[in-house]
């Protein structure tokens, strides 16, 4: 009897818990803390470097501030605020990211709803095509779209970058939302129809609100993807008015000399993604789980 109960209790323990129990928890805790510190160290290095004078950075390692805390200064960030190029580039990044995210959500929802709840010839085939496009690498489109955009005057424009990101975000958006919308109970939609709702009204008043969680995951993922992108912006964005990633990339060539811009600039470019990440961890993780890994 006791043995059974024992087994039941033990069965609920994980391997980690067992290791912890056997070693008194100490060894496992120390190991995880060490690994955690190791993982944090590169980011901490950047943060501290951004808070030191470039002369100090050229002279000694960032860990020196632990003995000389007086080295810490906000001047790098102060200078960055006065750096029109970097400030403009942050604005450009926002001008690209927000529309590209909204467009993917709206266009993806429309198509996802059509695939989930509308009847039309060739529906399954069309959906197969969209799923097939999930893994197409952006690299395939770089040269052709550059030519296409050149022909219609979209090359080196913010609108062009937005359209490119939207197009390549769509396969995943349609796939995710169609699967999510298909789970909406039929009765809900039928009830709305009996009340005389049009297809558009059904979409905006019933389907979109119910799709909230999936739309949130998608939105956060697309947002981070576009915000963090460098390659597409490198090719399609206006090189005189680039987003933050490209603006910083232009400084990397002379890494040592430009560290005063690069370190605080890189950290500022990380702030929005990190805030989004910590604020919407749950949606971010479920987005990852749904395979939104680009």
């Amino acid at each position, binding site marked *: 009897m006791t043995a059974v109960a024992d*087994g039941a209790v*033990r069965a609920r323990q*994980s*391997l980690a*818990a067992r*290791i912890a129990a056997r070693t008194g928890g100490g060894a*496992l*805790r120390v190991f*995880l803390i060490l690994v955690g510190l190791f993982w944090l160290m590169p*980011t901490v*290095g*950047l943060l501290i470097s951004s808070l030191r004078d470039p002369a100090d950075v050229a002279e000694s390692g960032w860990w020196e501030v632990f003995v000389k805390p007086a080295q810490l200064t906000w001047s790098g960030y102060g200078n960055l605020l006065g750096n029109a190029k970097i400030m403009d580039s942050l604005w450009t990044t926002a001008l690209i990211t927000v529309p590209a995210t909204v467009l993917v959500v709206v*266009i993806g929802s429309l*198509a996802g*709803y059509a695939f*989930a*709840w*509308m*009847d*039309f010839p060739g*529906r399954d085939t*069309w*959906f197969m095509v*969209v799923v097939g*496009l*999930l*893994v*197409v*690498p*952006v*690299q395939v489109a*770089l040269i*052709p*779209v*550059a030519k296409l955009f050149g022909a219609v005057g979209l090359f080196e424009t913010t609108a062009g970058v937005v359209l*490119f990101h939207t*197009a*390549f*975000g*769509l*396969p995943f958006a349609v796939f995710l939302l169609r*699967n999510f919308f*298909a789970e909406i109970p*039929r009765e809900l*939609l039928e009830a709305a129809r009996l009340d005389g709702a049009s297809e558009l009204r*059904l979409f905006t008043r019933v389907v979109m609100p119910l799709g909230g969680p999936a739309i949130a995951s998608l939105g956060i993922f697309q947002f981070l993807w576009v915000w963090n992108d*460098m390659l597409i912006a*490198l090719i399609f964005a206006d090189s005189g008015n680039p987003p933050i990633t490209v603006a*910083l*990339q232009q400084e*990397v060539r002379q890494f040592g000399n430009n560290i005063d811009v*690069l*370190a605080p600039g890189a950290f500022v470019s*990380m702030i929005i993604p990190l805030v989004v990440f910590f604020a919407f961890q749950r949606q971010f993780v479920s987005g*990852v*789980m*749904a*395979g*939104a*890994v680009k």
Partner: protein
Amino acid sequence: MTSGGTAAAAQASRKGAKKPGKSVMGTRPWIAGAFLLPALLLLGALVVYPIGYSVWRSLFDAPGSGFVGLDNYAELFSDDRIRTALKNNIIWVVVAPTVATALGLIFAVLTERVRWGTAFKLVVFMPMAISMLAAGIIFRLVYEQDPERGVANAVWVSVHDTFAEPAPYPGANPRPNSDLKATGGGAFTTKAAAKTGTAVSLPLVAVQPGDLKGAQRAVAAEPRPGQITGTAWLDFTRGGGGTPNRIDKQEKALAGLKIEAVKDGKVVATATTDADGTYALPAHAEGAHLRLPASNFAEAYNGVDWLGPALVTPAIIGSYVWMWAGFAMVLIAAGLASVPRELLEAARVDGANEWQVFRRVTVPLLAPVLVVVLVTLMINVLKIFDLVYIIAPGASQDEANVLALQLYQSSFGTDVNQGIGSAIAVFLLLLVLPVMIVNLRRLRKERQR
């Protein structure tokens, strides 16, 4: 871009995605068309049409006017730079996903249901939120060559110096005109054979001031019968005035210097100088030449050239693993949560130890998740660009070359040949084709259920 197709499809089939419902409106096709139109237009113009154009363009030469057939593809395997890129891509695809997944598995298992496991997971997962550009800048700092500045070399050098003691007097050498002569490899040897009962002085110069901290005044060693004695010192008086080859007042002793007595090319005795610079060799060193081995003067160990040609690819892979191990960990942790505990317990009751349970039960049960993680990472790594572009310094960018970087260079960068660029693009597409087919098969199977 969306390499997540596999993970997504796996997720969908796990949940048993419902068959899409019949229209509740009896929609007319033109309404469906209106809902679909924006998506299909964008996909058609910016994804599907470019695939066709790239295939077609890859069959033409650099200006795009001469048809060259498959020559551009042959070029992928004959051009040296592209072959380096191919070779590196293979290393990337094999190493990066494997290491990231292995670490993810270890972390997921070790943090499962541990109270502060969530905090740990957050720390490891966080780098996924930042751009590869920012990660690149972060790791440029980490891999800085100078051990005074780059944390990787700072750690490496201090570990190295723990096991191999640094030389006491790097860069020092004998006073010119003294009896010591360079004998190759950085060692110095006396010309005359040493006799017991005499003192052999070893005057050195060019010692770095920092190496003399706390050094005592040098003391002339007394000749002692049956021993070879002597002094090693810095034969240099600050402000001038000293006599060469003599121990003047104020001249500092060189403690900790290794001395070997060499007879017929063999070391017969060794000694180390004391704090006052004196040493003593036993009687059987009679007739030997005294040698100061090179280890006394070796330049300080300066660490590893992480971003040099030899190590640049492994170093960049390290930064990738830093970014993506968290992704593997989160997916595997989710898989772990759904492993039935009873199975594990049954194995334990049958007498399996923890390692056997892990190896024989947990890992096989996790296999589907591990495959999804590996494949997703492989597709992702295939297109690696930003990290290499940012981290590899100009001097080793050719050694670090990867396909996506070469594609960028060929299409928009330094060596423009859009025929080659298109061929690389199509090649990348071909490599992900199997995954596309698996995704479609899975979807069809779902439909038939």
